[in-house]
């Protein structure tokens, strides 16, 4: 196959490219330039868009003996990932830019450009596995039809597993994606592979920050891009407790940085419960009000037609509240959060008169909304805008963007 290896300049993507070469593919390395400020140079290595990283990627490509290109996707990145980041915060939500980068840049702009240029697949250094199964069904004429089903699964390396941020890519793109590090159980193993091949990035530290917030100061970045907008911090009764410089800088569940002059009457810590973009107010209150057991999501992506079919989903279902049946699963709402048990169903059309209408094409068509009932543990501080991923075991079933999270069950001990 002709494989494009996305090379960030880090150790993971370098080893992924090496493994693609060793698997016998015809590999070309591509580094994506994502920063608008092309002269940006950061000390150390923290993210995916510094000149130093581009140089490291080039060096790795040279060691592997593969052609290397830099693709300038900075405009698209700014228009999608950064713009979404800003508008989501501005709307009082909490976005995950890495999810949007996978959605719009790595598995759309990059993958589609690669496909147009004649590549069969894109290889990345993500920790996740694509499992291929042959499924035989009875075709419309009664004859058996065998087709290949691709499932996205968690990496056996639980600490590094990135299936959470990959789920947004949807089913169709799995067929054009390769994750050579999928089977690795530890990062040390990957570093050893890098060292064995003479890849000088073997000791490079991991990156954690948001790549386009170069100093790690997200609040400062938001303030610089959105401007200061002074507003009130209130409690649940509406009493004003303090001021802030922009509601967009707050996240549901946040405790630090509220700078409230006086303590709560009961002396307990206060958390951000709600961010109201229109009134520019931040509502704070006690931790127990953050607990949720119902989550609704929109912009859903499904990666498991079979699970939805078993749940009674008709692909052409229509109507204001057409829905699949409930199915058992677990859901995860943070990149490094633990999954909790839940019942999930796909829903078409707007809920409570809100949300986007169902789309007629693409993987997002099958229920653009998702409803989740937590059946075991509850979750705390689930903010609108977060990515919610549905699993069955290690398999990714779907992904959705949290639109609303609330509490339906009474507190433990209360009578039903």
């Amino acid at each position, binding site marked *: 196959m002709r494989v494009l290896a996305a090379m960030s300049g880090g150790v993971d993507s370098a080893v992924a490219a090496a493994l693609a070469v060793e698997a016998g593919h015809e590999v070309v390395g591509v580094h994506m330039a994502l920063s608008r400020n*092309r002269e940006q140079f950061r000390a150390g290595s923290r993210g995916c868009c510094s000149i130093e990283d581009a140089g490291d990627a080039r060096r790795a490509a040279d060691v592997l003996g593969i052609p290397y290109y*830099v*693709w300038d*996707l900075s405009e698209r990145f700014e228009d999608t990932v950064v713009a979404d980041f800003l508008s989501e915060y501005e709307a009082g939500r909490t976005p995950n830019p890495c999810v949007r980068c996978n959605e719009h840049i790595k598995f759309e*702009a*990059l993958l589609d*450009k690669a496909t*147009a*240029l*004649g590549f069969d697949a894109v290889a990345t250094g993500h920790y996740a596995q694509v499992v291929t199964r042959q499924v035989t069904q009875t075709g419309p004429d009664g004859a058996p039809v065998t087709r290949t089903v691709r499932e996205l699964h968690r990496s056996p390396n639980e600490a590094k597993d990135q299936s959470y941020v990959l789920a947004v890519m949807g089913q169709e793109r799995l067929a054009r994606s390769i994750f050579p590090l999928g089977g690795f159980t530890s990062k040390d193993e990957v570093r050893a592979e890098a060292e064995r091949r003479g890849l000088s990035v073997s000791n490079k530290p991991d990156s954690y920050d948001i790549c386009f917030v170069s100093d790690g100061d997200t609040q400062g970045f938001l303030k610089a891009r959105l401007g200061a907008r002074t507003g009130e911090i209130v409690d649940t009764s509406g009493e004003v407790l303090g001021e802030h410089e922009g509601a967009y800088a707050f996240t549901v569940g946040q405790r630090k940085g509220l700078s409230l002059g006086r303590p709560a009457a009961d002396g307990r810590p206060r958390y951000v419960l709600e961010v109201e973009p229109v009134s520019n107010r931040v509502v704070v209150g006690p931790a127990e009000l953050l607990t949720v057991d119902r989550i609704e999501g929109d912009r859903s992506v499904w990666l498991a037609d079979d699970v939805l079919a078993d749940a009674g989903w008709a692909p052409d279902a229509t109507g204001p509240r057409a829905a699949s049946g409930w199915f058992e699963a677990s859901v995860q709402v943070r990149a490094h959060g633990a999954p909790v048990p839940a019942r999930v169903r796909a829903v078409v059309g707007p809920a409570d008169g809100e949300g986007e209408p169902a789309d007629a094409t693409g993987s997002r068509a099958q229920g653009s909304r998702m409803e989740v009932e937590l059946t075991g543990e509850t979750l705390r501080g689930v903010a609108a805008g977060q990515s919610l991923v549905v699993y069955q075991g290690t398999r990714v079933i779907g992904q959705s963007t949290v639109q609303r999270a609330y509490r339906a069950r009474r507190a433990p001990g209360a009578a039903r």
Partner: protein
Amino acid sequence: MSPAALEAFVAELTATGNPSSLHAAGRSARRVVEESREAVAAALGARPSEVIFTAGGTESDNLAIKGLFWGRRTTEPRRRRILVSAVEHHAVLDPAFWMAEHTGAEIVLLPVDEEGRLDLDALRAELAAKGDEVALISVMWANNEVGTIQPVQEVVQIARPYGIPVHSDAVQAVGQVPVDFAASGLDALTLTGHKLGGPMGVGALVAKRGLPLTPVLHGGGQERGVRSGTLDTPAIRAFAVAVTEAVAARAARAEHLAALRDDLVRGVRAAVPDAVLRGPDPSTEASARLPGNAHFTFPGCEGDSLLYLLDSAGVQTSTGSACQAGVPQPSHVLLAMGVSEEDARGALRFSLGATSTSTDVERLRAALPQAVARAQAAGLASSGRPAGTARESTTTTTGRRPA
């Protein structure tokens, strides 16, 4: 490296003398350096004492821009303006802008027409207005991207009444078109080894004696005190061999390259009718362009996609000059010629050399249609725009600093 240059290079590597030493080995090395200086001077219509050996084109350009600016400022402090064409190589532009940022120089980017040729009227107007404030003028002999040959002699004539020294970066020109330093009237001229079949990392600034040239590198006082540093005898000898050879072979080689290039231009136009030739059209202005150069923009394509696709088909091309991070940027040369950023993204430069053959041109012609179709599809895919829509394009003015 050419075989003769390589032979000279290797032969000299076994010698040990430092040309600045007075012992026998040193004297022997000194003789090699001086004979090389004479050979370079003879090939370029210069006097040996005018040849200053450097570590290549970038150093020569830096020495010309910084050295002349500082040299003039000592005696005439009001001369703070540096006039350079907007299509200069970064080795000229960047030192000029550095001088503006750090030493109080003022940069004037002289505009070019849509073929990349310097606007002489703009130069005249600039000098008429502020000629007594100009420290130096630098205009390249021939452009490295679009191959346009600049009216260097006219620039010299226009500048002479104002007493302004003129430098020309002739890195692309020597060995391609006739270059005669004395006849040109230039005060300084840059050339480099690796463009002529010589080694990398060696070149020269040919500079008139008496030119006020402040050193950039200070030290042992070599090269008439203007360029300190132990002379690289093997590189200098190989450089001289290459210059001599390239100039001697120039006429025949240029004829061969021009014929091949004309085939290439016809072939590209036939294969991709909407490709746009940039720079002078060789079929109407044969002498206005470097013989081995052709340059096209391909609408809707990104140059690096074409580069990849053609490379896979065995045709090596270039998009222009790559920047520090290797991020393809719209060429400042094309922007100065009035090409939109959108169109400039689809630029591809074809350079033909001594080893190029008609088979190469044929291979390009065969590979191009599919490559262009794929590159156009890829351009749409990565832009996220639906087919048939164009990004709003911008044309930059020449006053802006090239990226």
